[in-house]
């Protein structure tokens, strides 16, 4: 579906999401058929292939997958933040934020429209705060940058806003004067989050925000994120390789492999009965605190070379259920009939939650009837 490229509403001072007009129908971010390639001298790498994803208002959607699966490329590509040699070859990304008068396709926006969209509507918390913060500017200056770029307010008001943002994430106000290298890892990440909230965005994309932190700090920050989301009402696209985190945090989870989605469902459903072999493999890679003890197994092998993607399903070399038909698969996402979640989809038509694994050595197993 095409939408005419509307213009985002100008930044009204202090307009918060709560005051905005009634939400327009449809998801806040609607990604349709998105494909992103990296054009290298050795060939085109299909990092993201015909991907569909919808993010609703106030929803937390988790994007799970190994490194190199394309999750970051998907998120940054949707915002057009990828650098050369990235190229968006297909698709549309429709944004329907509550402040925006008409739905707009991000892929068709002009640079000035994009700049208005950035941070004010879609903000990003980067993976490594040490690298994402300018080393020569103080925290205050960087926050003021974000504020002044989108909100018109006098200087002292901006300053007090910066201070109150730090309050939100639990950092003492005196830290406004500090430089990034003077802060601890957890503090830096909180500063990143505070900065992301500076213009009251509709969507926050969080790219592995806690991967570099130790577990205790991780816990704190995640709790903080959830609390802020409930209070301020933004949506989150949470990117991580840690599926266990998403099971607790996300409303819905989209599992990605080799640039494509292989399963999308609510987190409850994924936890209860995942449908795709890859998801099952991921779930088996970490122990759960409760429940019976079982043998941990990883997923042997490594992701395919995206320069020359294999025909059919890319997971075949590592899949315990692989059979000859998998090579002809077109990777469409099919509904899982036995699921509680009506929107539960999977890319594997042969495997159902109850399908037992193939005994090692035999080339094909009995298919579960869809």
């Amino acid at each position, binding site marked *: 579906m095409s939408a005419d490229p509307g213009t985002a509403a100008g930044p009204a001072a202090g307009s918060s999401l709560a005051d905005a007009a009634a939400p327009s129908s449809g998801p806040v971010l609607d990604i349709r058929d998105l494909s992103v390639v990296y054009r290298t001298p050795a060939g085109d790498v299909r990092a993201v292939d015909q991907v569909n994803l919808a993010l609703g208002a106030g929803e937390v959607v988790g994007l799970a997958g190994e490194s190199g699966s394309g999750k970051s490329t998907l998120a940054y590509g949707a915002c057009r933040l990828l650098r050369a040699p990235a190229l968006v070859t297909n698709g549309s990304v429709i944004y329907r934020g509550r402040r925006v008068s008409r739905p707009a396709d991000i892929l068709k926006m002009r640079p000035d429209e*994009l700049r208005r969209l950035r941070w004010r509507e879609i903000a990003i918390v*980067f993976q490594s705060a040490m690298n994402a913060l300018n080393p020569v500017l103080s925290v205050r200056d960087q926050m003021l940058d974000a504020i002044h770029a989108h909100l018109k307010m006098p200087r002292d008001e901006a300053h007090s806003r910066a201070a109150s943002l730090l309050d939100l994430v639990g950092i003492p106000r005196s830290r406004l004067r500090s*430089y990034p290298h003077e802060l601890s890892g957890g503090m830096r990440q909180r500063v990143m989050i505070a900065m992301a909230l500076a213009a009251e965005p509709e969507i926050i994309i969080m790219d592995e925000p806690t991967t570099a932190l130790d577990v205790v700090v991780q816990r704190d920050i995640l709790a903080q994120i959830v609390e802020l989301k409930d209070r301020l009402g933004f949506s989150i696209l949470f990117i991580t390789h840690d599926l266990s985190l998403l099971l607790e945090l996300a409303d819905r989870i989209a599992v990605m492999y080799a640039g494509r989605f292989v399963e999308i469902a609510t987190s409850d459903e994924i936890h209860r009965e995942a449908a795709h072999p890859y998801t099952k493999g991921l779930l088996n890679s970490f122990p759960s605190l409760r429940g019976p003890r079982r043998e941990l197994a990883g997923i042997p092998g490594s992701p395919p070379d995206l320069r020359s993607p294999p025909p059919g399903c890319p997971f075949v070399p590592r899949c315990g259920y692989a059979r000859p038909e998998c090579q002809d698969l077109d990777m469409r996402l099919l509904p899982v009939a036995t699921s509680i979640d009506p929107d539960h989809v999977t890319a594997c038509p042969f495997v159902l939650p109850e399908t037992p694994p193939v005994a090692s050595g035999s080339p094909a197993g009995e298919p579960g009837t869809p």
Partner: protein
Amino acid sequence: MSFIIRRLVFYVVAAWVALTINFFIPRLVPGNAVESIMAKFPNLQPAAYRALEALLGVGNPGSIWHQYWAYLADVSHLDFGTSVSEYPAQVSTLLGEALPWTIILVGTATVIAFLVGTALGIAAGWRHGGGLDRVLPGLMFLQAIPYFFFALILLELFAVKVHVFPIAQGYSQGLIPGWHWDFISSAIYHSLLPALTIVLTSIAGWMLQMRNVMITTIGEDYVVAAQAKGLSNRRVVFTYAARNAILPQLQGFGLAIGFVVSGALVMEIVFSYPGIGLLLINAVTSNDYPLTQAIFLVVTFAVLLANLIVDIVIVFVDPRARAREATR
């Protein structure tokens, strides 16, 4: 502050090493240098010969330590002895006459070249692949040309063939140096071509270096983050990218000062510019050891001082530098 003090100590150590090398080299090289000088310049006073002997450690001037301390004492009083080729002029006098010319010419030209080159480098790094990049191979060629050769060419083209610039000297013949406009304007006119040479040959280096640093810096996460924040291009280029890229560039400047000064000295010779360079070549060809040694020391001290200034600037620009040294 402690960072600056550490650097100061380092430079003092470096200066001491330079002095010590200066002191020991003539004593380590075989052959009797004094005799060859005496043969070249037979009309020096006996005191001058003795001074030379003391300088070079020939004869029986006393224990090494005694000589060393005497040497250091002399240097601290800026007493570099008497020149052999320009006898009986004092070396310090000769230096004093030539130094301002060199400092003004080389200093100004280098600063201009650095600033313009860095600005061009920022543009070239930001607009990677654009027009400026096409000029790169030409610039590399320019950078590889020895300063003095380029000076020869420019001189040939713009002074000999087409009389735009004067051929030589620091000022027109017949003018008396002094603080009056005739002299100053003539001096400026004569310094244009040498300055142009310095700028043209060194600008390529600064630009290339800054371009490469910019490209690396632009790939850093915080620049992407700045763009994600929707900041204006200007802010991203200058406050996020260039402000960080300038740090390695400044450090490179400190390291390169020695090169630039050396190259400029040789280039002065081509123009017969009355600076240290000309003094140096005369001293070398006539084996005027007191003069060559003094020039070496003065140039070294100047470079060390410039490096110290660069370090101070870096401390002001980079908040991490103060912290880094404090935690060591």
